[in-house]
């Protein structure tokens, strides 16, 4: 059995036939994939494709209907507590508390993660510094910009130096400059701490720029997986990732147009998943 630290080459995330149904709707359908240690792995798909449901299962927020997954060697269903100790998670919504200061947000997290008092202030200062928020620590988060909040949330999620970081749509709603800042921090995080990152996005450019591997989800299923460059090459010399996505799913992720039926279905699904 792979326990953390025993074998650095074993995948840090192992997902096998992971399935989640809500009533009659199958939100995630027999999903299987591995994520190598130190990789930045992108899960791509339109709204309602099952990305967020997958992340919720992998972060132990939602029990799977069937199938299994191991994170850092621990089973999400049998050892959720151990999984939680080894991961950091930034939710799609803004999870930093606007009524607290940046420092206070991190302080509460440090305590929840049981970081001993002797290490706490050093870790908090380090995380704030790393996310370039050192001078904003004592301001209420309610006054932060969207990009600052995202960086604070990532700081919050990395306080306990997790091996594995889950980011659900980390740059959605950010302006281009803020987006680049978040990308850059994610890259440095991987470089300095060797953190593995699993992120969802529906920004093809983001996936192309940032991710070592991408997996496309469509209607709960995994339809393609590989390095962005390989996937593009298979399709043609000038293909971009959006064309690859259309090739595998039959819909464009960028436009998100779809017909009325389509929108109605995804909206309803999204509602159910809340």
């Amino acid at each position, binding site marked *: 059995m792979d326990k953390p630290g025993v074998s650095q080459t074993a995948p840090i995330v192992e997902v096998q036939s992971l399935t989640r149904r809500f009533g009659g709707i199958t939100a995630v359908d027999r999903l299987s994939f591995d994520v190598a240690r130190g990789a930045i792995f992108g899960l791509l798909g339109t709204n309602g494709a099952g990305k967020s449901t997958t992340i*919720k299962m992998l*972060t*132990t*927020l*939602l029990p799977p209907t069937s199938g299994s997954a191991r994170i850092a060697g621990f089973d999400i269903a049998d050892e959720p*507590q151990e999984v*939680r*100790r080894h*991961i950091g*998670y930034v*939710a*799609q*919504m*803004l*999870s*930093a*508390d606007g*009524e*607290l200061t940046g420092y*206070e947000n991190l*302080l*509460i*997290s440090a*305590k*929840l*993660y*049981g970081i001993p008092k002797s290490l706490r202030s050093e870790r908090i200062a380090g995380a704030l510094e790393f996310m370039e928020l050192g001078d904003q620590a004592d301001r*209420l988060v309610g006054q932060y910009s969207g990009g600052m909040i995202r960086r604070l949330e990532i700081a*919050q999620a990395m306080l306990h130096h997790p091996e594995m970081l889950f980011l659900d749509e980390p740059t959605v709603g950010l302006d281009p400059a803020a987006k680049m800042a978040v990308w850059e921090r994610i890259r440095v995080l991987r470089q300095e701490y060797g953190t593995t990152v699993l992120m969802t996005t529906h920004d093809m450019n983001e996936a192309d720029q940032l991710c070592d591997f991408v997996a496309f989800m469509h209607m709960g299923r995994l339809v393609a997986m590989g390095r962005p460059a390989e996937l593009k090459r298979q399709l043609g010399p000038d293909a971009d990732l959006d064309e690859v996505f259309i090739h595998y799913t039959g819909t464009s992720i960028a436009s998100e147009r779809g017909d009325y039926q389509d929108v109605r279905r995804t909206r309803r699904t999204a509602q159910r998943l809340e």
Partner: protein
Amino acid sequence: MSAEPAARRSALSSRAAEFILQTTAVAEADIRKLRHDPAELFTRMIQPALWLLIFGQVLARTRAVPTGTMGYLDFIAPGILAQSVLFVSIFYGISLIWERDLGIVHKFLVSPASRVSLIVGRGLSSGVRASSQALVIYFLAYFLGVKLRLDPGCVVGVFVTVWLGSAIFSTFSLIVACIVKTRERFMGIGQVLTMPLFFASNAIYPLAMMPPWLKTISTMNPLSYQVDALRALMIENSVSSFGFATDFSVQAVFLVIVIAIATRIFPTIVR
């Protein structure tokens, strides 16, 4: 072999230390928010003041409620305190729905903090809000000439009782929030719950006055035990009618039950 129990004991004590750290962290988040914006504490003081100053004063003049040798204001002051603790606590769950919509609850649930500590921490912090109610009641009651027991032991006892009641009703409120899941439904249910809990208790009239069916319901209502303990601790020459042992064990049992249910149901709020 002899090392084993010692190792187990130290593992247990470090688990206990972690539990306390996580529980107080949950409460601390809430208390720090109150410190940044204490307006809520003051607006919440208005309702109990109105009940005591208007309802209490007027009813005291009618002399319609048989409260024995005790004046009606003396009788009702602890009842109003229990009532405002109930009102503050029963809507506590709405903040959980709010935080769920924002994504804050997710952050707590993916942390390794035990689910029990997340629940107990919230109960603890709701006690802080409720304590502000005790302060205002003491203050007003003193100026209205209510015969208060002001020795420190009794005052501490009142605050402990307020904390206990607030933990029961706020945890109950969390359960309701996890079941109904939306703010609109929660507001409706909250209204439906508070009034029966309030009227089917000994808060503003004694149990002895009630028709038998209501009396039966009242003796199953944790608020009655809350009021009974508060009255005996707060007012001169009053005695607990159920007895302190009963008052506190009934409340403790309610607290354990709601914590157990809330701990199980809490993770479903984000599903």
